[in-house]
């Protein structure tokens, strides 16, 4: 027996499923707790009631924790941004960031001589004296996380590496995130992603410690993997250093789950959570990816993430007494104590939806006295925003099915003007189902010397190796494929010709009930 467990830790609810192949054996939804591990343990305990933990082959966890932290500017830590560039540039880091994030992450920018030219040559000797002075200022500021970028570090990582060594030597207690490990060519976008990653590290450490402990506590000894933005998984150790790569896994998982639960491969997916609603387009069973530099909570970044519009609307979203204002604040995981339905005194979107006849939760009697006009107005405001987002997600004016998933899916059933919604039976745990179907990935990121071989041969070799690594990581040999390939020529490296190749391959883990191979 080999069961897969999928867990999704949302801002409001923690969902878990046990899957045998594609069959949902058990599913549960529990409130996300302030210490997320308590909610996870509750969910695991619930779904494992009739399952022997020895039969669990792997645990897949998806978490929206980190994107919520960015969207709400909570739990982020201050970051010192060090950029190696000669001379100092006028376009400073965080130039185009939204105002609410800047003060949270801080505006400590240090530009230091260094970096590389396009062909890998030095742009200027690394200013070690200057960098030590910067390290001193960072030490005095008390900031513990450094985002380090360098001009053309994707071509020549050496200046970034040297600066990292120096900074860690001076500041042994700080973390350094190197931009070359996070993003692609394009300094501003790569730097943005690096800063976000650095701001998340403290939170990531705490969250991942908790995940490890709680899975062990539930008696599971199977590998634990975290979902990444592109629908593949990574180990918890890697996630400690690169939480940014999990940042958009929530939408990916819920959209994959929506496809798996409905059998519909092309649709708009609306994922209603406790704090946010994500709207994205499903194409061939996978989320449509953003193919241009993409905004992450208003921050332009350049790695592969699904093209999803996120709105501050969910079950815990605050509603004003007259119903005219819905959000953006949310009670989040405190819904079970603060919402009117649960005995609190905060009016939430769940309260008005249940008052209008949505699937009952809590004590519907507590919202029976709500002003019907205010209830209707709030639902209209919410429905209008969802309808606009669905329109925006669609690529054509033609009719496209709309699948609603997420814990708040039933709330939308009573919203006026939203018709032809497909709400699958297990809508509430689509995220966890999708997480459990995350794929195994393999990556190659290396400089190839082209002495005696061609670029095409090097690329073919890299592709074959990435595929082999994905298979090694568990991908089904018959379904593995290259999902991303990129190469940057280094014309002046060592007098010869060389090329920096980055290839990613991915494929689904084989399902245990292997009748016919599934397309996705």
């Amino acid at each position, binding site marked *: 027996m080999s069961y897969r467990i999928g867990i999704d830790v949302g801002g409001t609810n923690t969902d878990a499923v046990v899957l045998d192949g594609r069959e949902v054996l058990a599913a549960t939804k529990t409130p996300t707790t302030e210490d997320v591990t308590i909610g996870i343990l509750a969910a695991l305990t619930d779904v494992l009631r009739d399952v022997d933990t020895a039969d669990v082959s792997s645990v897949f966890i998806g978490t929206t924790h980190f994107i919520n932290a960015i969207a709400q500017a909570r739990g982020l830590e201050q970051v010192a941004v060090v950029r190696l560039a000669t001379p100092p540039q*006028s376009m400073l880091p965080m130039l185009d960031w939204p105002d609410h994030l800047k003060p949270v992450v801080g505006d400590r920018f240090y530009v230091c001589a260094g970096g590389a030219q*396009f062909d890998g040559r030095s742009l200027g000797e690394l200013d070690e004296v200057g960098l030590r002075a910067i390290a001193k200022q960072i030490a005095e500021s008390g900031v513990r996380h450094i985002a380090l970028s360098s001009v053309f570090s994707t071509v020549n990582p050496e200046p970034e590496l040297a600066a990292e060594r120096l900074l860690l030597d001076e500041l042994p207690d700080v973390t350094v995130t190197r931009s070359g490990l996070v993003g692609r060519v394009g300094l501003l976008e790569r730097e943005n992603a690096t800063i976000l990653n650095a701001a998340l590290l403290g939170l990531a450490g705490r969250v991942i410690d908790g995940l490890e402990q709680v899975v062990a506590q539930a008696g599971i000894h199977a590998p634990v993997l975290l979902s990444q933005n592109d629908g593949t998984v990574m180990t918890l150790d890697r996630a400690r250093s690169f939480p940014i790569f999990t940042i958009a896994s929530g939408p990916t998982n819920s959209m994959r789950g929506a496809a798996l639960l409905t059998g519909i491969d092309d649709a708009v997916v609306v994922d209603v959570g406790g704090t946010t609603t994500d709207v994205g387009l499903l194409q061939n069973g996978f989320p449509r990816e953003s193919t241009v530099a993409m905004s992450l909570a208003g921050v332009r970044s350049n790695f592969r993430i699904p093209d999803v519009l996120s709105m501050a609307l969910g079950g815990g979203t605050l509603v004003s007494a007259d119903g005219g204002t819905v959000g953006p604040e949310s009670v989040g995981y405190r819904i079970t104590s603060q919402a009117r339905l649960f005995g609190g005194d905060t009016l939430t979107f769940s309260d008005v939806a249940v008052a209008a006849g949505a699937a009952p939760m809590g004590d519907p009697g507590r919202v029976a006295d709500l002003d019907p006009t205010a209830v209707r107005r709030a639902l209209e405001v919410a429905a209008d925003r969802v309808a606009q987002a669905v329109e925006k997600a669609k690529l054509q004016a033609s009719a496209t099915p709309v699948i609603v998933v997420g814990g708040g899916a039933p709330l939308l059933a009573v919203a006026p003007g939203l018709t032809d919604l497909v709400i699958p039976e297990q809508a509430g745990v689509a995220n966890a189902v999708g997480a459990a179907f995350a794929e195994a990935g393999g990556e190659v990121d290396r400089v190839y010397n082209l002495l005696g071989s061609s670029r095409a041969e090097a690329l073919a070799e890299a592709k074959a190796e990435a595929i082999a690594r994905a298979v090694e990581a568990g991908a089904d040999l018959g379904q593995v494929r290259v999902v991303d390939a990129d190469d940057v020529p280094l014309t002046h490296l060592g007098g010869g010709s060389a090329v920096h190749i980055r290839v990613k391959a991915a494929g689904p883990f084989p399902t245990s009930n292997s009748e016919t191979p599934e397309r996705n």
Partner: protein
Amino acid sequence: MRIIDEEALNDITTGSTVLGSGGGGDPYVGMLLARDAIRRFGPVQLVDVDEVPDTANMVFIAGIGAPGVLIEKLPRAAEYERVLGQLERFTGTTYDYVCPAEAGGLNAVTPFATAAARGLPVVDADGMGRAFPHLEMVTPTLYGGSATPFVMVDEHGNTMFLESTSNAWSEEYARAAVLASGANAAMALYPMTGAEAKQRLVRGALTLAQDLGRTIREARAAHTSPVDAVLEQQGGVLLFTGKVEEVERRNERGWTIGQAHLSGLDGDRDHTMTIHFQNENLAAERDGAMVATSPDLIMALELDTGTPIPAEEIRYGYRVAVLGLPADPHWRTAAGIELAGPRRFGYEHDYRPVEEFAG
């Protein structure tokens, strides 16, 4: 005369990416540069060529370098604020108007940085109606206009003043100098009078960029095809619908040079296309046969959103519509084809207007 605000700047930015034909540099970076200048110094006036007095002096402001370099070694405001003053210092002439050399990409908006800093108007015109990789490939060259006196400033504090005997020589020297700087510098070039501008320039080039940007924005909002909307507005041809399978790209002599190989989707299934680029997309082969060449515009737009994809960003997995758009009539003359036609870039192929290509 009209005032260019941030929204207009955004539309010009999108449209100039289309006119960039894959090159011209990342307009986002140019937009940030121009927006920053407008925020610091105030809004900029855009004037029609006809509003420029015949005796007024004007000059092109442009960046030079490889697009693949500019997204890493970001252009600096300081050079765009400095470059015109340096030309004035060398020539002893005062310039009253600035103008983009190309309405494609970064260079469509960089003159706004100079204009804002100096309080000068920008002329709604350019020397290409698109983007080209060589600085002599501008319409003033067709009318005997000289690229020099010319000034180039780099971020390392170097200034180069040039007088040359031909615009092709200007390109050679500028290219050598920009390589020395690390493939990124600012220039003021092609000084001309208002009277000369009226004869030599592609009129309304920035308005064209703005219209293209608005067309794409509005088509997206209406959920109609931005690709169709662009074709309808510009009278172009859909050359291919496909997925990018492979890209070969290298930085050579300060240019981004390479090919993108596409496999067909929808009606183009079982067919292939190769796009050749040198900063800009210069030629497109369908199943090995040339179907579009410079000076006509060849542009890859993301199939669903119409987002134009620069040659330095195109990579595996993009689903694109490849469009051929007719070049400005200046370019379709014998002199224009000689200066910027396929043979000029080493393709053994006669120019044929892109709209003659039928499916």
